[in-house]
């Protein structure tokens, strides 16, 4: 007769077994999340639980903010109002002129047969908070899947490009700032028309990589989006060159830039609508179509093969 411990002593699996199970599970999650990005559904499901708690946590700060603006003095409001009125009048001339120029530009483009520049539109969103992680340059905005925000949409403020929506949740979305280490924006130098890609450095600055030492760049050069990626609309300010290090030991110059937009500040931003995909020229479109049919034919063949094997 074998000796069984009484059920009184049963405490589930041994701690070390549990530990190795949970550690293996976390490591698997880490690897899958870092390499394949296939856990978005799990993330969204969990966010249904964390989102209310987060809102609760941000309530005191919001109340304090609102109370502050409620008790703002009338004198300050009047001064601000006058300032805004003056600013509006100052800008009216430029605005009228730009409308005129835009109309003229459209006409000229039509004459030249160039494709029309698309209008940009979007929705205003508020930055709720930045991620607690000290390593990530990401912020959370208050628009999500409910407002039809999708991953990939560009985000701007009144001074330039802020970043790009990288993850969406039901009520909020995560925006990766252009200063994040993993974010790259295709840009063009306004003065010379030179095209390049600007990378985030992770410390609030940006860097233009792979530019030859003799490239025509100066401190103060403005970089705007080139629009070649099909994501960011062309012509939005991105950064300004602040420091150029040209060391002859390296074949590339190190060019540091600072973002023009208030990237690291909390403010309101605008989420631009995604750009419609540009249609391919006919000969290329045909090629892609034939490839697609071939691919689908292959799939059909594979499906047909399978029952034979069985």
């Amino acid at each position, binding site marked *: 007769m074998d000796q069984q411990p009484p059920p009184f002593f049963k405490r589930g699996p041994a701690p070390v077994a549990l530990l190795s199970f*949970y550690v293996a599970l976390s490591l698997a999650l880490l690897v899958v999340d870092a390499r394949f990005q296939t856990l978005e559904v799990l*993330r969204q499901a969990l966010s249904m639980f964390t989102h209310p*708690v987060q809102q609760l946590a941000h309530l005191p700060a919001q109340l304090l903010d609102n109370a502050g603006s409620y008790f703002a003095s009338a004198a300050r409001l009047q001064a601000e109002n006058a300032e805004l009125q003056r600013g509006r009048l100052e800008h009216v001339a430029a605005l009228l002129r730009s409308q005129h120029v835009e109309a003229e530009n459209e006409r000229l483009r039509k004459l030249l047969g160039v494709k029309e520049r698309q209008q940009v539109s979007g929705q205003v969103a508020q930055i709720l908070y930045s991620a607690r992680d000290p390593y990530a340059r990401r912020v959370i905005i208050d628009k999500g899947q409910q407002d039809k925000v999708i991953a990939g949409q560009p985000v701007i403020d009144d001074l330039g490009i802020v970043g790009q929506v990288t993850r969406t949740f039901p009520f909020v979305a995560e925006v990766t700032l252009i200063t994040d280490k993993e974010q790259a924006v295709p840009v063009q130098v306004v003065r010379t028309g030179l095209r390049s890609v600007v990378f985030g450095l992770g410390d609030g600055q940006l860097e233009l990589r792979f530019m030859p030492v003799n490239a025509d760049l100066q401190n103060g050069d403005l970089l705007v989006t080139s629009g070649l990626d099909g994501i960011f609309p062309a012509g939005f300010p991105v950064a300004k060159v602040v420091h150029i290090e040209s060391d002859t030991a390296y074949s590339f110059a190190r060019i540091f830039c600072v973002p023009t937009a208030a990237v690291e500040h909390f403010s309101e931003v605008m989420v631009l609508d995604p750009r419609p995909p540009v249609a391919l020229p006919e000969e290329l479109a045909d090629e892609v179509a034939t490839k697609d049919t071939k691919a689908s034919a292959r799939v059909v063949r594979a499906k047909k093969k399978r029952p034979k094997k069985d």
Partner: protein
Amino acid sequence: MHTSYSSSRILLPVRPWFIALSLLAALLLNFLPTSAWLAAPDWLALVIVFWSVREPRRVGMGLAFLFGLAMDVADAGLLGQHALAYVLAAYGGSSLSRRILWFPLGQQALQVFPLLLLVQLVQFAVWTVAGAELPGMVYFLGPCFGAFLWPLLTLLLLLPQHQPVDHDDNRPL
């Protein structure tokens, strides 16, 4: 139910809803917009370590894993990064629980400090593997504050378990 060195009082059994409430409160504290301040202690890690030391049979690695996932989602970090750190801390807490409770509160804090440091180090390691740099030594101040808060936290979280003191000469206990 353990009695600690410093207190000879016999504590009431812990109520499960109070454990849940304290964990949720710690989650709330972690979600406060304090991201600019790197040295903020990780409240959730502190409370998880506390309960896994005090009640290793009620709060274990499973709860630590779930709360870690919640932190990962809220932080927009890699999924599993907090979960791994909290699971290790909970394991450390529950396996050292008998030893830690033997000491007075001040020395308990000294023994809890490495566990809190482990939470921070695991996350740092995950980020290093993913290709990030150390945000500065301030990052490791959080566990120090956490360890300082240990005696205070113990008093606070054990408060509902103290029985009212009524002296009765006929009753020995």
